[in-house]
């Protein structure tokens, strides 16, 4: 219980740090970019939207920075995110609602796939240490993870949609396709997500393999594994139940950090494939100097990662009896 409370506390504290960074950044920057943006859009926005943005960015407002800060916190938490400039006159809220499912689907599923496969390769690699699998897969994927995500994406496009017209080059669905629950539509969505998905899996798997393999090697030399061997248990049981389960814990703890890297890479993958998710929208917002949309998307990505980390903490609670005590 105490463990869970501590993790919840960390969740809240980190969320607050992220919110605060978001508030402070536009005010710290030289030349006040927000003011320049406001000047550009002065005629375009209605009075109310304008004044909301004035508060959010601290431009031409008479209220004190402290009051601005608290009204910003309130607006951010209650979903009053203002109007997007790129997709004017849509609200930031509706733009976000449109982009979120794409990213949650793509990044969520690929992360789970990469984690499972990477962890299994790490376990088997460490178990048959020095064997052919251990000699080939870990080095290959570690070198692949040094490649920029977007570069692998470009290679994939070149190979599978330009040289061989096998899969679509980009986008979430075929232009003009109507969203429906038909197999055609679902197939179309899947076909568009194969290349970006495989790109993310291939480049992110190396990290999981490396940490899992290292943990596993350390765990295998421990007494309880020797004990299990002495008892004559089957090697599958020892590998998964005795060593694997224990070696998995540090890997789960590292999940939050790794997730940050994966999400970062996924942004560029979305950009390369014009995949209509949060990352692609974020970059569009940046290129159009759409600060309200940019701020909200940054916060959302952070919150998504924080929630995932919290979920992993809860899984750890189930897997690791030590966190349940006291």
């Amino acid at each position, binding site marked *: 219980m105490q463990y869970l409370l501590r993790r919840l506390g*960390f969740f809240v*504290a*980190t969320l607050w*740090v*992220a919110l*605060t*960074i*978001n508030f*402070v*950044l*536009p005010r710290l*920057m*030289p*030349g006040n*970019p927000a003011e320049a943006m406001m000047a550009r859009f002065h005629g375009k926005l209605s009075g109310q939207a304008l004044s909301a943005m004035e508060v959010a960015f601290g431009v031409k407002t008479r209220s004190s920075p402290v009051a601005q800060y608290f009204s910003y916190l309130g607006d951010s938490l209650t979903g009053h995110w203002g109007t997007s400039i790129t997709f004017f006159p849509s609200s930031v809220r509706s733009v976000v609602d449109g982009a979120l499912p794409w990213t949650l689907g793509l990044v969520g599923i690929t992360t789970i796939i990469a984690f499972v496969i990477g962890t299994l390769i790490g376990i088997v690699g460490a178990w048959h*240490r*020095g064997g052919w699998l251990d000699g080939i897969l870990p*080095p290959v994927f*570690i*070198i692949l*993870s*040094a*490649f*920029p995500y*977007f*570069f692998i994406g*470009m*290679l994939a*496009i*070149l190979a599978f949609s*330009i040289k061989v017209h096998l899969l679509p080059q980009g986008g979430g669905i075929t232009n003009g396709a109507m969203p429906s629950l038909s197999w055609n539509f679902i197939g179309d969505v899947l076909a568009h997500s194969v290349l970006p998905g495989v790109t993310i899996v291939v480049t992110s798997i190396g990290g999981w393999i*490396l940490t899992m393999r*290292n943990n596993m*090697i350390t765990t295998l*030399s421990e007494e309880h594994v020797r004990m299990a061997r002495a008892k004559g248990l089957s090697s599958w049981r020892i590998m998964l139940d005795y060593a694997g389960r224990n070696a998995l814990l540090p890997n789960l703890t590292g999940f*939050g*950090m790794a997730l*940050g*890297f994966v*999400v*970062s*890479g996924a*942004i*560029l993958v979305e*950009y*390369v494939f014009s995949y209509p998710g949060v990352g692609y929208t*974020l*970059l569009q917002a*940046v*290129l159009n*100097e759409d*600060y309200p949309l*940019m701020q909200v*998307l*940054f916060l959302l*990505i*952070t919150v998504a*990662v*924080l929630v995932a*980390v919290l979920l992993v903490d809860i899984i750890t609670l189930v897997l690791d009896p030590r966190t349940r005590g006291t």
Partner: protein
Amino acid sequence: MLTAPHDPPGAKAPRAVVSLSSTELRGRAITRKRRGRALTSFGRTLVGSKKALAGATILFIMVVVAIIPNVLAPYSPSAEVFPPGLGPSGAHLLGTTSYGQDIFSQLIWGTRVSLVIAVVAGLISTFLSVIIGVSAAYLGGVLDGILSLLTDSFLVIPAFPLVVVIAAYSNGGGTPIIIAVLVVTGWSFGARQLRAQGLSLRNRDFLAAAQLRGERRLRIIVFEMLPSMTSLIVANFLGAAVYSVLTAAGLEFIGLGNVNTESWGTMLYWAQNNQALTAGIPLWALAPGLAIALLGGAFALLNYAFDEVSNPALRHVVLTRPHRHRIGRQRAS
């Protein structure tokens, strides 16, 4: 207190430097001896491991290219004087861009900026990690709590969106801004590792001895703790350099750097903007992409090999006797 995340380290850095220069010679001799030992083990890794040797070779070649691009590149990287979109040939090893520039010359000139960003950003973030991580470990108490919370928060907040947001606000400030952004988002991983190692060192006898001798805190940190952490610090630098190479490339690729510098990321930006892949000049995008991967891979290979030095459990070799003694001591941490 937490509103300006890069303030506390910035305020602390100069102080540490000042006291470093004002200490007596004996301490320096000890430091040199310890650092020397760590460097010998680094050298041994380099020769002993194929991975490390490959990484070091790639890095060495790139450093040479970065120093003398004017000798190696056949043409000016920016001159738009050739027919656009040529394929590879004897005159243009990698062909020409849609603007009629020589791709090979661009690749050669791009080495310098890309390498400088990696090394400088890597060095500064490692410096920050050391200061924050080690002081958190040594000072303990409330200060440790605050510094650790800050470290963990920065670790979990996804770096790239933050990088993108900062770069967007600073509006194309060029290489120095990119380096600053990489440092702000890149220090936390190392700080956490160094704090962990610092904590395990705290109760060692040699530190207790230094305390009993009545040495000042700062002196203990700089001359007693840091030298014994050299291998982890080097590993951290390599990790930070990989991170910097990839992130800088990503930033430049989406056009958030200075698009007029000569670097690999910028080449990719122009290639993507002119749809080099579909336009039949894939080398324009493939060459800088591979170069980035090679540089990142070189640092990663060195790091991988170095991981085996700092974590002997991962090593697969028979050790000589005097060596074994030292490894045993490290392992206890």
